[in-house]
Structure formats: structure tokens, C-alpha cells
């Protein structure tokens, strides 16, 4: 039950955060909301380690940020990531990077729901800050 308590604390932090951030009109989507959109190619929460598209879970934030900015600015060769990266601002890229860094370095199928909920709550609790 230790896991469960940890999860509950994290979830409480998450709700509180959501409540405080709710006071002003949000300027950008949360890191998690953006990161979920990457799943069809990179796996649920970036946890796909056996396909051509690179896994994003656990990627050091700097590596993620550098790659996305290079794609966006056209300094790194791409097939479609240049188009995708042009949809994001620096702050959005940083928030996604911070979120993915906190996800388990582990194939999605082998990750339990509780383990993932903890990782997602921990990532949301950073508020997108490294």
C-alpha cells in the first residue's frame, strides 16, 4: 500500500496545481497534455522502445529540447518532425521535455497503471519546470 499512499500525495498535489493554475486563463497546454499527443508514433507516454521512432520516456530534457529546436529551425534533417516541431514554442517544448524525462524507461506493456500514474503525477507536479 506504500505505492498507493505515494500516488495519493502526488494526485493531491496535481489537483491543487490544477486548481491554482485555473485562476488565470491558461496560456499553453500542460506538458502532459502535449506529451499525450506524441503517443501514436512514440508510444503511450513515450514508452515505445522497439520501433523506428525514438522513445521519449526518460530522455534527458536537454536532449529533447535541442532536438526539437533543431527540427523546428531546419538545422536537423527530418522526414516529418520538422513539420511537427514548427507547432511548438520554446516554452511548450521545455514543458514536454520536463514531462517526458520523468516517465519510466520501460516498454509500455510492462508498466503497471499505478507505476504510470505515479510517474505522470510526478511529472505534472513539476509544472513543466526542470
Amino acid at each position, binding site marked *: 500500500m506504500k505505492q498507493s499512499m505515494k500516488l495519493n500525495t502526488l494526485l493531491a498535489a496535481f489537483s491543487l496545481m490544477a486548481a491554482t493554475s485555473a485562476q488565470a486563463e491558461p496560456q499553453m497546454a*500542460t506538458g502532459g497534455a502535449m506529451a499525450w499527443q506524441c503517443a501514436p*508514433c512514440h508510444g503511450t507516454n513515450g514508452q515505445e522502445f522497439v520501433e523506428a521512432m525514438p522513445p521519449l520516456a526518460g530522455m534527458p530534457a536537454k536532449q529533447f529540447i535541442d532536438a526539437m529546436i533543431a527540427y523546428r529551425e531546419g538545422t536537423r534533417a527530418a522526414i516529418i518532425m520538422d513539420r*511537427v516541431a514548427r*507547432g511548438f514554442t520554446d516554452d511548450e517544448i521545455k514543458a514536454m521535455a520536463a514531462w517526458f524525462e520523468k516517465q519510466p524507461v520501460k516498454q509500455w506493456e510492462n508498466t503497471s*497503471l499505478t507505476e504510470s*500514474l505515479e510517474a505522470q503525477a510526478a511529472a505534472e507536479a513539476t509544472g513543466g519546470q526542470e
Partner: protein
Amino acid sequence: MSQLENKVFDSKVTRRDLIKVFGASAVAATGLFGASKNAFAKSAPHVVVLGGGVGGSTFAKYLRFADPDVKITIIEQFPEYITCLRSNDVIVGYHTLDELTFNLDTIKSKYNVNVVIDKVIGADFDKRTVQTAKGHTLSYDKLVVSPGIDFKFEDYEGHSKELAETKIFHGYKAGPQTLALRQQLLSVPKGGTAIIAPPQNPFRCPPGPYERASFFAEYFQKHNPTAKVIVLDPKDRFTKDGPFKKAWERLYGYKTDNSLIEWVSGSEGGRVLSVDGDNLSVETMAGTFKADMINIIPNQRAGKLAQKLGLTDASGWCPIKRESMESQIQPGVYVLGDSSIADAMPKSGYSANSQAKVCARAVADTLRGNELGKAIYSNVCYSLAGENYGVSIAAIYEVRDGLIQPKGKSAGVSPITDKPAQPILEAVYQKNWQREFVKDVFS
């Protein structure tokens, strides 16, 4: 409340009941009903999802991420789901239907979702209940509807649901339709003709008809090189038409006398007005075309269920609030996927998956009384213009001026380059994407 619902959610349920409904692994894995300490408190809200296809299944999984304690039920009419994704491959034999068949078992066991296999026949929005064909009534706090599409056979003189089940197949819901088209393609005689008639906008999978035409041409090239495919289109443009036509030139002699593909645009009279199933011919503005097989992909509207529930407007599709996918017609009811009016987003599986995630956060926030977060959507459609030749379109979307619109400078199709690796890599990515996508939806 029906018996069914009591059995699932009543706080007095026994462990045996839990195992019966959710499967032993789910109960064993968590030791609990939900994922946190509150074992689905009696007061926990109940979110009911109608349709366990791409939109519905993704939604249930991601709502579980957004809210570990909410009760979730999916009502899906069929025990198995065959993806349309890659079903064009089945027609030409690059895939089998088995490889495209999925179910909701993992959604049920891993994400503690109650799955009911039954057909939804109605809803009472005042009482907040839905009725099923087997006679169950389920009550909900929030309702999510993702029922796919319906066909407008009446737009073509001589066409009907019956004809579409016996001779003039659409192949736009995967399954027997797909296999019937395969049978017809294999039976086209030497030097014969196949007609593909794409629908008017908007419709499910905008590149689908053109990918299919490409595959037919590739099949003929290998097995029946004097045969040809004629695309009779009501439109003058189609998605990715630049890269598609370039691929046709490179691969199938498009624009030459020996082209395996001929495309008749709307201005050239390509729109099909009527069909004659006995003589296998169609009437268009440009005259009569006879063929050995005719694949009419009819004009479309929101799934029958969405129409029946009164969620559609005069366009035949469902108007939604862009920040949440909540119906503009029925508060507390959300519409996902092909049935919804999502502005610049195409009706794709990727879009349905994307919308489901935005909606999951919106429903969780609403149930907690929080303001909604900012919505972010995305779509990538990879298509094959040949087995090893991919073309793609991609965009990230945001809500701007009340509409879902491309964000930043993200929107774009594959560049046409002389780099031979580009289309080959796009084809690799497309196959990668398909394997990954179904995992994100169903596991």
C-alpha cells in the same frame, strides 16, 4: 439503475463480482477497484462511453490517467474491432484482417473499465440514462459518443444499402466489405477496369481512396499490367494530391498513354450521379463508365447513433465546443472522432485519438470543478502510394478564434524532393506508426 450497473458499481459488490466483471487480473493487480485508495466510492461519477472504436477506447484509457477514481463503462456493439487503418493493404494482400483485429480486453483489465458488448438504441438526456438492445438501462454523469460514420447511399441514383452489401462495396468499414473488394480485384480480367469513386468532403480518411487507387495500380502492375484503375472524383483537389500525383508519375506512368491510373476531377465531370449494379456501370457528368468492379465510397454523415440521439446539425455532423469536444446541442455529452465537426482536423483515427485525450482531460477537470486546461490537438496521416512509397500530412492544432486551426507553421504535406530516401522512410514510418497507434488505442 439496472441490475447490470448494480453488479458493477454497488459498494456492496463482492470480490467474486469484481472478478466476474473486470477479470481476475484487474482485481489482483490493484487489489482495488480504481487505481487509488478509494475503491470506486459510491459517489464516484460514472462516465459512459458509446462506441469502443478508436475514439471511445482511447478516451477510456486516458480518462483513467486523468482520473484514477471515476467509474468508466464502454458500450460497444461488437466483441471485436477491425481497424480501417491498413485495411487497404488487405485488399491487395499486404496484410490479413486477422492482423487488424483487436478487442477491449486490455482496456478492461489494465484500466479498470467496465466493457459491455451491446448495441446502444437510445438515451434519455433528462434522466441521464442510455438504453441498450439487450434491455439494459445505464445511468451516467457524463456521456461520450464516438460512433464513426454513416453512408448517404441516397446521393447516388440506383444505389442502396443492399447493393452495397452485394455488388458495389465501399470498403470503408473494415471487415467483410474489405474481403469482398479483394475478391473483386482478384477477379478483374486481363485488361479490365476498376472504378473507385471517392466521396465529397468531408469524409473519413481523406487520403483513403487515393491510397487505395495507388494499391490497385501497383497490384495491376504486378499481376494484370494491361488493366487500369479510373478514379471518378466529385472534387478538383484531394489531400496530399501533390505528392500522390508525383508518386503516380514515378510509379504508374501517370499522365502517359500507358498510365495505370486515370483520375477524372469534378470539373472534368467525375462526379458519379447513378449506378447500375447489373451492368456494372456508372453515369457521371462526363458520360457513362463501364467497369469490371466499382468501388463507390459514398458521401458520409455522422454515425447513425449520433443522428438518433439528436447530436447532429443540418450538416449531418455533430457541432462541438472546441476546448472540450462537448456537444453544442446537449450539455454533458461529448462527441469524438469522425462524427464531430473538428474544423481543420481531418476525420482520421489519429484525430479521433487526439480528440479523445483532450476530452479525457476536459471531462476530468469538469468533474472536479476545475477550469479547463488549454486544448492541444494533432494529426499525422501517413499513406502509401505503393508498398514502399509513403506520403504524409501532419499538423499540430490549437483553438484560435473559436475554431480548431493549425498551430504555428506545423501544417504541411511531404515535400517533393529528389531524395529517394524520403518516400521510403515515410513508408517505414507508416508501418511503425500503425503498430504503435493500435497499442496506444487498445493497450
